[in-house]
Every structure is written in C-alpha cells, then in structure tokens.
C-alpha cells in the first residue's frame, strides 16, 4: 500500500482502489446479475462456439507441430475467454494489437485458420491475413506492441475517428518498460486505448510473484493516471462486459482503461516447453475447475440454451472446418526464396536487387 509506511498524521492527498468483476462462478452459477448483452442467447452461444473452436484448433495445431508440420505453437488452453471475450466487444474498425497467444481474438476478427497456421508454420504470408487490414500481426517481442498501440490510438484521436485500439499482452509484459511508457503516454492524452493483460500466472517458468511485487496488475494503471480493474478471465461474460464498457468509454473520449484478466495457463507455454519442469500437475489440475468452456457450458445447459446435440454438432463442424483449413495450409504453395526481398522496401534498392537475383538463381551479367 502506498501509505503503509507514511506517518498516520500526514494528510492523504490521493486515494485509489481496484475492483474485481465476475458474473459466472466456476460451476456456471451466477454470482452477480448478468450484464445486458448476456440476455441474448445467440451472443452467448457464439462466444461459446468460438472458444470451443479455438480449443480444438489449438489441439490440432499441437498435433501438427508434434508431427513436424508446424513450428513452435502457443495454445490458449484455459484462457480462451480472454481473447474471445475481448474481440467480441470490438468493432471491425477498432484496431487490435495482439500478442502471440491471442489466436482467439484474431479468429473472431476474421483471420482464417490457415493463415494462423501459416504464421506458426514459418511463413510471413500468415501476417497478410484476412482480418481487418489495419490490425497488427502477432507480436513476438513481449510488450513491444504497446507503444504501437499508443501511436495508433493517437492517430485515431488526431483524426477524430471514433475507433479504439486494443492492446493485448501477458502478465510478463507488464514488467516491461515499453508497456509502461505506452500506458503513461495514453494517460497523458486520454487516448482511446484499452490495455488487456492476460494474467495467466506464468511467464514461461516465472511465476507472478517473481514478476512483480504489486498485489494486482490492474493497479499498474494508477501509475499512468487512469483506471484499471481485475476481471475473472475465465468468465467470458465478465471479459466481454469489461471490454464492452472500456471500449465504449474510450470511444466516448473518456480515455484509456486497463483490464487485468486473471486466468490460468493450463497448457505448456508453447510446444517447446515442458511446464512440469517448474510447476506441479496438482497445481494445474486444481485450475481445471475454473476453465472457461465448461463454465459457460454449464450455464448455457442450465438455461436450456445448449444441448448435448448442439455440442455434438459443434464438434463435427469444428472438426470439418479445422481439417479443411489444415488441408489448405498444407497445400499452400511454398514461397520462392527470392521473395524474402519482397516488401523489404516499397521499391527494392538496386544495391539489394542484385542479391535478389542471385537468390533467384539468376546471375548478373
């Protein structure tokens, strides 16, 4: 606490608090009256379907990796509610700046499954995706997209466009100076910018307590002079509600907001990782109780919005969609080597054109 040590007789000049949002309890019961959008069964079902698709797609991607047909891949297992909930609250004209683990958000925004596979398969064409043309590609250097988000939001504000930038990153990213610098700038200019930190408790093997001494990640917004809140990140209703409010407020000129989505990474960090090296199976097991898909399913089933037949049909649909995408991915013609020079500059300078020709197997006269 900022005042922990200050003499009690000194006057308090500023007070802050952090609230926590959740609606669905882990067992699918209701902890708090649901927000308005949740009265629409269609939307809830759509959120559910997206999370299921994401989970099944992740599973397939890992299988592809294990059989040498895909590179390193990062699953969303246990965190599906975050990226899906956030993306579902965005408009197409809003701008997404995702991390490498935010597949769910890209899918919601229209990026094709095979495009995501192309990216993780080591092909830049995966970044030339069918999602909104202004959206950013996955960001691999952790947190380094946060200053871009501030630049995007500044541009939106400068042009008086009613759009909002949404920047997603992990708990690890909140330790990075660039993320802080971006937040601080967003605070100065009250930018239309929502930061979403997916607090899945781990940055590879580094647990949250070694990442920061702060009680919450939400309170990091206090340093930048704007609001932050903690959200149950395994509750897609809470994620969507938090995003909806924050994005609407940002669109309204009320400035930035920080959402800490508290969840848990049930899978390995990536396919290159073996999480059992640094955390126990029991710990992971315990968190399975909270995971977002079963939680929403319980609610939907309880509300008679979802049946076993629906579930079976969904599985079949997803399977088909995924297999078709994998097929398209695997049959995508390879890029010619010399295309690595394409889009290096708008026009390739002569100094490098010769290298391109060499690579193409042409030889200079």
């Amino acid at each position, binding site marked *: 606490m900022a005042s922990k040590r200050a003499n009690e007789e000194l006057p308090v000049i500023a007070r802050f608090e952090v609230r926590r949002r959740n609606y669905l309890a882990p067992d699918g019961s209701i902890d708090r009256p649901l927000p308005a959008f949740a009265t629409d069964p269609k939307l809830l079902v759509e959120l559910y379907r997206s999370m299921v698709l994401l989970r099944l797609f992740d599973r397939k991607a890992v299988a592809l990796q294990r059989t040498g047909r895909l590179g390193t891949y990062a699953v969303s297992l246990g965190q599906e509610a975050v990226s899906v909930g956030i993306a579902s609250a965005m408009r197409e004209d809003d701008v997404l700046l995702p991390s490498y683990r935010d597949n769910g958000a890209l899918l919601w925004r229209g990026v094709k499954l095979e495009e995501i596979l192309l990216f993780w398969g080591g092909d830049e064409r995966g970044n*030339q995706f069918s999602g909104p043309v202004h959206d950013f*590609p996955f960001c691999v250097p952790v947190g*380094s997209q946060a200053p*871009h988000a501030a*630049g995007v939001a*500044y541009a939106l504000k400068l042009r008086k466009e009613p759009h909002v930038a949404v920047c997603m990153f992990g708990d690890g990213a909140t330790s990075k100076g660039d993320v802080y610098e971006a937040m601080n700038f967003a605070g100065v200019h009250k930018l239309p910018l929502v930061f979403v930190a997916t607090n899945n408790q781990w940055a590879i093997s580094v647990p949250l307590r070694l990442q920061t001494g702060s009680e919450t990640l939400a309170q990091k917004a206090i340093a930048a002079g704007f609001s932050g809140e903690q959200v149950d990140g395994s509750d897609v209703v809470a994620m969507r509600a938090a995003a909806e409010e924050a994005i609407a407020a940002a669109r309204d000129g009320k400035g930035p907001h920080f959402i800490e989505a508290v969840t848990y990474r049930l899978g390995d960090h990536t396919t290159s990782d073996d999480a059992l090296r640094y955390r126990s199976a029991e710990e992971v097991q315990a968190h399975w109780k909270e995971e977002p898909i079963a939680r929403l399913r319980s609610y939907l089933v309880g509300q008679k919005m979802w049946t076993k037949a629906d579930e079976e049909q969904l599985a079949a649909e997803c399977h088909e969609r995924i297999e078709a995408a994998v097929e398209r991915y695997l049959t995508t013609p390879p890029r010619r080597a010399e295309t690595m020079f394409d889009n290096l500059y*708008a026009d390739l*300078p002569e100094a*490098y054109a010769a290298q391109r020709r060499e690579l193409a197997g042409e030889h200079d006269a």
Partner: protein
Amino acid sequence: MPEVTLVEAINLALGRAMADDPDVVVLGQDVGVNGGVFRATVGLQERFGPERVLDTPLAELLISGLCVGMAAQGLKPVGEIQFMGFIYPCLDQLVNHASRMRNRTQGRLTCPMVLRTPHGAGIRAPEHHSESTEAMLAHIPGLRVVMPSSPERAYGLLLAAIRDPDPVVFLEPTRLYRAAKGEVEDNGEALPLDIAFVLREGRDVTLISWGAMLKETMAAADKLADEGIAAEVIDLATLKPYDESTVLGSVAKTGRCVIVHEAAHTGGFGAEIAALIAEHGLSSLLAPVIRVTGYDTIIPMARLEQRYMPSVGRIVTAARKACQYN
C-alpha cells in the same frame, strides 16, 4: 535565395512537409513551444498546433514506438531524439518493428516514419551528447539511414525522407547546425535518396565521408590541391542503402581511397565501404584503402573531443600516403 543555416534548413523542410501533407506529425521532447533544443522545430507548433507538433514524455523508446504505430495508421510521423546518445532505447523498435513491418506483413502494414537526431561531437556538449554510431543503424535491413552535410542537402533530403514510404533515420550533423550556411530555396523540392553526391571532382584520390566530417574532408582537399593532388570528394549522404556505383566509379578512376568518419574505427561504416572496394574495386586499386576515423575509445568529454575527431591534418596525411603508395 536566402542564406540559411543547416538547422534552419531542417526547420524549413519540416514546415514545408507539414504544410503540404496533413498526415505529417512532429513529435519529441521539447519540440513544441520550445522549438527543440537546437531550434529545429521552432515555430511549428504555432503554425500547426499542439496535436501535430507534440511534446512527448521523456521516453525515447516510446517516441520510436509511437512513430511505428502512427505510421501503420497512415500518418507520417517525424520523431526527434534529442541527441544520438539517447537513441539506443529506440533500437528495439527500429530493428524489430519499424524496419520489418512491411516485410513481415507482406505489405499489409507499412512504416513511413522518420526519426531525426543530432549526430556527432564538436560542440563541447556534456557526456553522452557526442555519439556517432551510424554504423549500427546502417546494418539494419529495411531501414534507410541518411545524413546531410549542407543546408541544401538537409532540406532536400529531409523532404525526401519524410515522403519516403519506408522508415528513415535522419542524422543531423550537430556541429554544422549553425556553422554550415548556404542558399536554400524553400520550393518543396526533394533531393534523391540512395545517391551519393560528388562535391568535388579529382583524378588522384577519392575521399569519402558523410555528415560533419565533410567540412574537414573538403578542407583537406583544398590543402591537397595546394600540393598538386586532385582529390575527388564524395558525400555518401545515404548510408543505407548506399550508392555503391558512385564509390566504385570514383575509385576506378583514382585508384586510391581514403574514408573519413568521426565514429570509432572498428566496425564503423567506413569498413563497409573499404570492404566493397576490396571486393569489387580491387583491380583498380593502386594503394591501400585508408580509414581516417575516431579512435576505438569512448568519445571523450569536451576537453579532448577535438583530439578524438579526425583532423584536416590526419586526412591530408592519409591521402598523401595513399598517393605516394605504389
């Protein structure tokens, strides 16, 4: 045509670019009311308002990252880093994002940004204010690195840099900001990038330099002329990508080459030019390629900085040595 200093030429180019194109935005520390610590942005905020001429918080990484985000949205940001010694936090953004946004998204997003910064020593500035680490930047694929050496080229090249659809680091020779004067017509005409300028023709030896060191290099050419040595002087102007054919063409003619830069010797950009010649100009080479550079030590504070930087005398000696070699 009016005579202006180099920094005034920068200011003219910025004003012109902003007037011509509403997407041009200037940002950095003290660029607003204060007009920049060197006055490069003076008057711009009055003309174009605080939203387009923006004082940022004290955070260089942020400045470069904001530029990337703005540029992806189609703005044409011109960021200022107050001194080159403070540019290093930007390298992450320059290497990992700015330079590769177009390539990694296969043209979906682009990065038409400029990052300006004063370059080099010689103004008796405090510690960390005298850096010349252009070689680090000129190694980055996808980036352009440009350095003018006169008011005219400052004006024309900066306009070109701003209009260029790709990221440019624009290094301004601090030492010439006020010392270099020349006629500049504010006509909105850009000079070509990626092209070296032959400042003086000569058949005996090629002197190649960029930025402020061209002052000493031209003075050395004068002295050499007195001795009967006709030096050709090349202003490289764009370091990345650089004009290989002008370099090779000149060396093909003279057979002798001296490269002059202020940065430390080892791994300086002079090495790249010497290597180019060693590979593609060897047959015409009549003498070793000599680099006259700053020493391989920390650029000292004000008292010794003059002794660190290449002097006219050192350039003349090297050129003489190249000419005497056979």
